């Protein structure tokens, strides 16, 4: 408990991490209340096209080539980015932990087979695999989420396996085994809590890279066609970049700052949870 408090203190005394938390909270707020601010469909035409930001007070970030409100699009887009990012990470973590824990805990033949399985998925170039999966399954928000989870679980599995192999031999685990505890109890109650710190750090970076992957997919036209996302806004703005570059720049800035916030949080967590690596700072 005291340790957890110390770690929180380290995390919250880091200005970069605080900036990350604050910005991410703002994005989450935008995602939650997008429908309250802009109840209509953000894909509807509301004003004349190509209003520049600041030109009309009612549309502070302007309108796009179809007369859609850019600010409404960015707020609604936050929803897709965060949902896909968090859901894909949760799925990837679950699968990765399950597979990595079994490999690391049981060892032997199970380990050999699972390591080979992980290796196959790590060898496949992840974005190419992602494009293939989404193209085969037809792009919707849920297929994109599952596909991102499929390409991101191997990292978690490797990490979990390494942690489990190291912790498996610790005295308290041997003691638990000696007391006759079952595998499930040892895995979930004894080893997993101690393997969590690196997984927590990884998960914030995973959300960041899931958001990047989702935006790249929808930029290429492989996102859910019925929902507005930051990537698809950039994809649409691209055609008019010569005359209306703000349509490409603004959603891009939303992605950059959200991903930056998550990476800053990841760095902060890393410093707080693994003080060993940050002595030089």
């Amino acid at each position, binding site marked *: 408990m005291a340790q957890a408090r110390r770690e929180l203190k380290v995390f919250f005394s880091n200005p*970069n991490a605080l900036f990350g938390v604050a910005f991410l909270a703002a994005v989450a707020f935008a995602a939650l209340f997008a429908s309250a601010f802009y109840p209509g469909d953000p894909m509807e035409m509301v004003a004349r096209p190509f209003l520049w930001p600041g030109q009309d007070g009612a549309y502070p970030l302007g309108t796009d080539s179809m007369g859609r409100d850019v600010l409404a699009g960015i707020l609604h887009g936050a929803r897709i980015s965060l949902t896909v990012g968090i859901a894909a990470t949760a799925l990837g973590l679950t699968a990765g932990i399950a597979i990595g824990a079994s490999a690391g805990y049981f060892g032997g033949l199970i380990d050999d087979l699972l390591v080979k399985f992980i290796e196959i998925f790590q*060898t*496949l170039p992840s974005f190419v695999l992602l494009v*293939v999966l989404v193209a*085969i399954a037809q792009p919707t928000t849920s297929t994109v989420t599952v596909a991102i989870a499929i390409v991101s679980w191997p990292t978690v599995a490797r990490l979990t396996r390494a942690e489990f192999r190291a912790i498996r031999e610790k005295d308290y685990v041997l003691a638990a085994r000696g007391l006759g505890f079952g595998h499930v109890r040892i895995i979930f109650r004894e080893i997993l809590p101690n393997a969590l710190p690196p997984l927590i750090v990884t998960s914030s970076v995973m959300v960041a890279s899931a958001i990047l992957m989702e935006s790249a997919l929808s930029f*290429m036209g492989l996102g859910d066609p019925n929902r507005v996302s930051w990537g698809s806004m950039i994809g649409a703005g691209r055609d008019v970049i010569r005359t209306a570059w703000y349509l490409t720049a603004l959603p891009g800035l939303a992605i950059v700052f959200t991903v930056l916030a998550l990476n800053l949080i990841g760095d902060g967590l890393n410093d707080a949870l693994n003080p060993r*690596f940050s002595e030089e700072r």
Partner: protein
Amino acid sequence: MSAYKRVWRTVRKTIVQAVPTMLGIVILNFFLLKLAPGDAADVMAAESGSATVRSMAALRERFGLDNPILVQLANYLNNLAHFSLGFSPRYGMPVADPIGQRLPGTLMLMLIALFIAITMGLILGSLMATFSGRLADRLISIVSLLFYSIPGFWIGLMLILLFSVKLGWLPSGGDSTIGSSLTGISAILDRARYMVLPATSLSLFYLAIYARLTRASMLEVKSQDFVRTARAKGVSPFSLTTRHVLRNALIPITTMAGMHFGGMLGGAVVVETVYSWPGLGRLAFEAVMARDFSVLLGILLLSSFLVIVANAAVDLLQAWLDPRIGASR
């Protein structure tokens, strides 16, 4: 143990490991191809516009699509063993042809991007490690974190906006001036102008990773005894950094560069669509749009193979450079 012996051991170990991985990937690829909506007969029937149930059945028989799935898998493996990736009805040629045409473009782009990322990453990382904890370190580390957070396609578009649209210095897409009859040096310079923006867009993300990695591993090496000895011996700070610290810090970076090959191929897919760069990524994008899954999966298979080759090359390089690797076992 001699360097040759170490390398030979690594070669053997790599082959033993790579063969089952490749087989697993091939089988996975086959089942993905089966999952894809519509088989080759459907595509050809749609192309011709006049298909009957009987002609479809005949087509399926000709392509062996009416066989049990395991027989089809065996045929697929047999074709691959003869370096045939299948036939693309959409392009009207074997799948390997368009892929072979586009491969050099992508490899070129990736190698140049990797070169930029490693050189700049090493320079920035050494600067950070040298000034660790001071302003320069903090500034560069924020910049590198920013590079790490920028989507490649977006920075690509922003670079086009600045350097092509506003300043007019560099071309916005393609790989060489169309219809130009340049030869020799001027042809190379012309291609280089087209290479600058895509390679930069692709490299920024990796540049950030290498800079951070260089910083971390240099700080680690710096605290080791042999560095203190060298300093006590009176080695100049510059030569200490380059010859003693950086050299040892290079090993984790080469490992990472090998691991990033696959990631970079994926990055190239997006960057190539931004710059209409005639490479594999652009081909993958066209294949998705045309719903040509045989080409798409051919690209996936070939790129996985390239990842295996790249990893093996890095292993060999390290076995050659570092006596500690490959000596045990």
